[in-house]
């Protein structure tokens, strides 16, 4: 039986977990909360550095195992914010050396996919991965994840955050905009930008901010229209990729996947296309340590480990760079 300890800390959430084959033994998170504005990479890294000891000792205590029984230490090596990645990598390297067990550098995006497959039972789904910095439509082709479509500028989560910051709504803006949108009654025409399989959000956000600032429309109506446009764009591209690849399973993952309106739209589209819709529990949609531990375990079993001296973090690490050997 393999047991892996995994640490996630690419952005706002510092989280660790211990996973044994198909069982979660323990998990614990201490997320960073910006005082105002968005996530500041240096402040986030500082918060992670302060909390990492507590996070790791807590998962070790909660798992109630002898640390000697742990077979590997996994950490998210990228993509993510450099300072945050480096903080987590340092802790993972130290653990690897201390316990004399292999180090595993996990691609953060792939971890979102693997935990989704594991928890939902999806076999070979197309994946819509939507988080703060990432918005991608991904599918496994041969031994690699292929990106069929993605944002040409900012991720959907950051787009919504940018809108909410303009009106002093605290990070994360997503859940608050979702609430405001529920009170919207009128649809306002805003930019809708799909270019083939890719999409873009920055023009949409600017137009939405201006619409509120000009006091022509209420923030409720604009939030509603912003969500409708942005999510319709994502669903349209997802549907096109499903058609193109002739796939009959869809997996939703990433923090923005918690949005009820987006889930509702995807469900309807899947119903109409005879596609099975999968989404893990909201807790495992956003960044979490379990996904890193579990993916690390898959990698360890396939013999994919990394030497400490080669474990430099990769802030721009793309999922299509990884060979999937498991």
């Amino acid at each position, binding site marked *: 039986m393999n047991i892996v300890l995994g640490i996630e800390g690419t952005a706002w959430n510092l989280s660790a977990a211990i996973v044994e084959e198909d069982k979660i033994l323990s998990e614990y998170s201490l997320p960073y909360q910006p005082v105002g504005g968005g996530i500041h990479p240096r402040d986030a890294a500082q918060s992670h550095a302060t909390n990492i000891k507590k996070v790791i000792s807590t998962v070790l205590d909660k798992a109630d195992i002898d640390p000697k029984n742990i077979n590997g230490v996994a950490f998210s090596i990228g993509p993510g914010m450099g300072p945050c990645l480096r903080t987590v990598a340092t802790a993972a390297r130290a653990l690897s050396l201390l316990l004399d067990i292999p180090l595993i550098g996990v691609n953060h995006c792939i971890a979102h996919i693997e935990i989704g497959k594991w928890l939902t039972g999806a076999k070979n789904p197309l994946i819509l991965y939507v988080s703060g910095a990432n918005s991608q439509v991904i599918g496994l082709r041969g031994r690699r994840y*292929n990106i069929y479509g993605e944002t040409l500028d900012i991720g959907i989560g950051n787009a919504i955050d940018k809108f909410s910051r303009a009106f002093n709504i605290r990070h994360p803006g997503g859940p608050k905009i979702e609430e405001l949108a529920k009170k919207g009654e009128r649809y306002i025409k805003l930019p809708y930008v799909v*270019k083939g399989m890719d999409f873009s959000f920055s023009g949409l956000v600017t137009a939405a901010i201006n619409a509120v600032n000009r006091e022509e429309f209420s923030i409720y109506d604009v939030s509603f229209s912003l969500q409708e446009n942005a999510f319709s764009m994502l669903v349209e591209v997802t549907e096109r990729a499903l058609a193109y690849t002739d796939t009959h399973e869809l997996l939703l993952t990433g923090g923005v996947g918690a949005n009820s309106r987006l889930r509702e739209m995807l469900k309807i589209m899947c119903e109409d296309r005879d596609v099975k819709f999968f989404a893990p529990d909201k807790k495992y949609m956003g960044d979490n340590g379990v996904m890193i531990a579990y993916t690390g375990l898959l990698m360890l079993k396939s013999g994919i480990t990394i030497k400490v001296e080669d474990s430099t973090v990769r802030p721009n690490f793309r999922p299509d760079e990884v060979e999937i050997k498991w």
Partner: protein
Amino acid sequence: MVIKGAEADVEFDEDNGIVIKKRLPKRYRIKQLDDIIRRERTKIEAKIMADARKVGVPTPIILDITYDTIKMELINGVTLKEVIDERLIERVGEHVGKMHKRGIVHGDLTTANMIYSSEEDVIYLIDFGLSRYDEEMEGRGVDIHVLFQMLHIYDNYDKLEESFIKGYKKVFDKAEEVLDRVKKIEKRGRYKHE
């Protein structure tokens, strides 16, 4: 025969040699947005198809149009997805070059949107639903970036890219500038934390 695409139902009437493309409402999006998208895309598609043909890019001739439906001539052939090779993709490069020169961006350049007629040895471009008039390097770059992304499904995609570029350069004097932009587009829009 009716093919249910991601965006529209396309009815092939072989007897009369016509294709009827109807954009169907999507239940997942609200009616106001749905109406705007279907109406605008139908109108632009018809206009651009005619304009592309004028600059020498084969497209089906339009017979009739309503707010959500285009009736056009049927092209006999197979999609390039099935028969792609270096010679044919070079020809696609020429077609795209001619359109870009005319200020048209196709918006959905995939090999499923190209029909090869072996009888005529001609490649027709179809599905101009996401097309627009755009003379910016960015729009042209994204057009090609989208195609290159899709070419990754073929094992010899690097050769295919090369051949496309050869054809594109042949007809379009600003090709180099666009291809530089393609490289930049590939690098950005990904993770820009630092």
